[in-house]
């Protein structure tokens, strides 16, 4: 195989890479010109289908197939670009937008041409402040040059891109949550069907694509589907931006062909585990995907192989390394707190389940863990998410997977932690035991006397006298 040549990140180290003149000097907008002047929309869709480009946002759905779900007789199409990158440990889209916004804009132009979308909403999370400012400038530059607006490249194709800023909600990265948020509502995911391709934003057929997915598109148009498929592993083709953070010597984002092993990513690109330690566990693709144990590090990070050791999927390919001095309880507590904070509250199993997992993990961490907690956690995670079919979106699956994988791979450590971390302040009270047994004893429910009489007038409203 020929040496891998990075394309998505090829401009990152070039000075002023975020400006139009630099992007054009590096061959920018030639792919868009080619698509709009030499190809027809269906030709582009078929090219992307042939390339087997899979969505880079998390689910790995084939991009060309998604585009072909749009109804043939549609009058209007919208595109939403998902730049609400909020999965913990993921930051590749941020760098893509800050360093090379025109690559994304070119991808949007081609994607919209292929799907006949005339308006594109770029939903950027609020925290990407620099990326937002750079994108606004880049869009103005592109519009001034005639790459956006009316009759682009004389092809008769019109397109406007609008940047829409989020407001700190993780759930708006779910495609229908994003659409609801775009419409000015709370970001509550929708029940599907109808899928966005049929009825999406503002009730119009809508395509939702991730930033990195669209950034791949100009390169496929320029170099062809075979070039794209010359990289990666079966069913996982092309380049991928891997993030690596946590207990490594170098926290970074690097472009590699899909399917690199976790070990190579850590050893070569993360320059090894920090402080000369060993990895205990690795989170392979954002915290929603579960975790790999130290003896599973040779797993290739692609859409398929990562499922073998029981992970949910490749996710965002954001790897977080946890060293051997860190307790799995701390990791689980952090994940549980995140999902309890970010559950949108729409579906009861997720709203209550994530909160219950968080409460339980907090108690275990503080020294009040009980062996049966592990059984209860196992039960909660099994009933949580779209896998068992109890929630609308996959947030709950993400909350379940760290628990599921930790119970399967680190149960002895969890049991050991509970045994060795017992704080009397969190011990089970007689009342709790009685309630659990289902037969409260008199002793257990006798109120504790605090040696004070009830305050007189305690129930009286202040306005009644």
């Amino acid at each position, binding site marked *: 195989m020929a040496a891998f040549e990075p394309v998505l990140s090829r401009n990152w180290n070039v000075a002023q890479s975020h400006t139009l003149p630099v992007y054009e000097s590096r061959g920018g907008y030639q792919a868009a010109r080619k698509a709009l002047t030499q190809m027809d929309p269906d030709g582009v869709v078929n090219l992307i289908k042939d390339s087997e480009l899979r969505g880079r946002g998390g689910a790995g759905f084939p991009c060309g197939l998604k585009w072909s779900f749009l109804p043939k007789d549609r009058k209007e199409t919208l595109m939403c670009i998902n730049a609400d990158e909020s999965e*913990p*440990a993921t930051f590749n889209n941020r760098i893509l937008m800050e360093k090379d916004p025109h690559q994304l804009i070119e991808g949007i132009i081609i994607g919209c041409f292929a799907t006949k979308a005339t308006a594109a909403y770029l939903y950027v*999370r609020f925290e990407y402040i620099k990326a937002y400012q750079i994108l606004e400038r880049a869009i103005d530059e592109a519009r001034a040059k005639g790459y956006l607006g009316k009759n682009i490249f004389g092809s008769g194709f019109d397109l406007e891109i609008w940047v829409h800023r989020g*407001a700190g909600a993780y759930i708006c990265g779910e495609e229908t949550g994003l659409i609801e948020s775009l419409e000015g*509502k709370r970001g509550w995911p929708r029940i599907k069907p109808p899928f966005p391709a049929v009825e999406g934003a503002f009730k119009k057929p809508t395509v939702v694509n991730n930033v990195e997915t669209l950034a791949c598109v100009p390169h496929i148009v320029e170099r062809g589907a075979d070039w794209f498929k010359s990289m990666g592993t079966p069913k996982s083709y092309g380049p991928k931006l891997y993030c690596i953070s946590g207990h490594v010597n170098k926290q970074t984002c690097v472009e590699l062909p899909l399917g690199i092993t976790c070990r190579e990513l850590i050893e070569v690109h993360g320059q090894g585990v920090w402080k000369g330690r060993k990895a205990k566990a690795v989170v392979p693709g954002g915290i929603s995907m579960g975790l790999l144990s130290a003896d599973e590090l040779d797993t290739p990070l692609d859409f398929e192989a990562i499922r073998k050791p029981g992970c949910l999927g490749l996710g965002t390919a954001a790897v977080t390394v946890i060293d051997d001095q860190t307790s799995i309880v701390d990791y689980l507590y952090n994940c549980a707190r995140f999902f309890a904070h970010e559950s949108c509250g729409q579906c009861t199993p997720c709203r209550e389940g994530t909160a219950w997992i968080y409460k339980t993990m907090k108690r275990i961490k503080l020294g009040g863990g009980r062996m049966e907690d592990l059984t209860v956690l196992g039960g909660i995670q099994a009933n949580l998410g779209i896998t068992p079919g109890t929630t609308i979106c996959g947030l709950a699956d993400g909350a379940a997977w760290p628990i599921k994988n930790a119970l399967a791979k680190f149960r002895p450590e969890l049991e050991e932690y509970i045994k060795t971390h017992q704080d009397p302040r969190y011990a089970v009270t007689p009342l709790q035991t009685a309630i659990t047994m289902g037969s409260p004893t008199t002793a257990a429910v006798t109120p504790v006397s605090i040696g004070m009489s009830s305050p007189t007038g305690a129930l009286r409203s202040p306005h009644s006298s």
Partner: protein
Amino acid sequence: MSTVAAPLLNEGIRAKIRAYIGRYPSKKAVTLPALHIVHESLRCVPFQAMAEIAEILEITPAEVHDTMSFYGFFPQAPIGDVRLWVCRSLSCMLTGGEEMLEVTCAKLGLHGSGQTSSDGKVTVEFAECLGICDFAPAALADDGRIYGPLTEEKVNAMIADVKRGPQPIL
């Protein structure tokens, strides 16, 4: 006795909000941009502002409040000149983010996240992943300045920098 409250949103703010209306097929879609515009000017979004946004967008104040309250992003009382988010999610936690949040609050004399320094210059909040894990443990100011990897000493420099007030980043 009742008085008619003077409008809270001046013409400049209203014009900025109206400029967004042509971008979307519905006026309601301007809710989030409008909240951001108001928040940027007033450093909060009080009830009266929600009612005035509703009037501009021809929706009910309750609809604006429904959206606003979901995000937990828009305070109803003014925050400091700079909002500083300190990340506590996985990569930052592993590299000391929770300690950095505590240190930042302590050095500013705050009792916890969500509070504003007594000089009104900075509000510190915890954040779930800010997407700047290559700087972990990291913090982000709401003008876009990124701080990290943080250490106790670097927190001092960060606080001094933040207290200079909002700065342009481009």
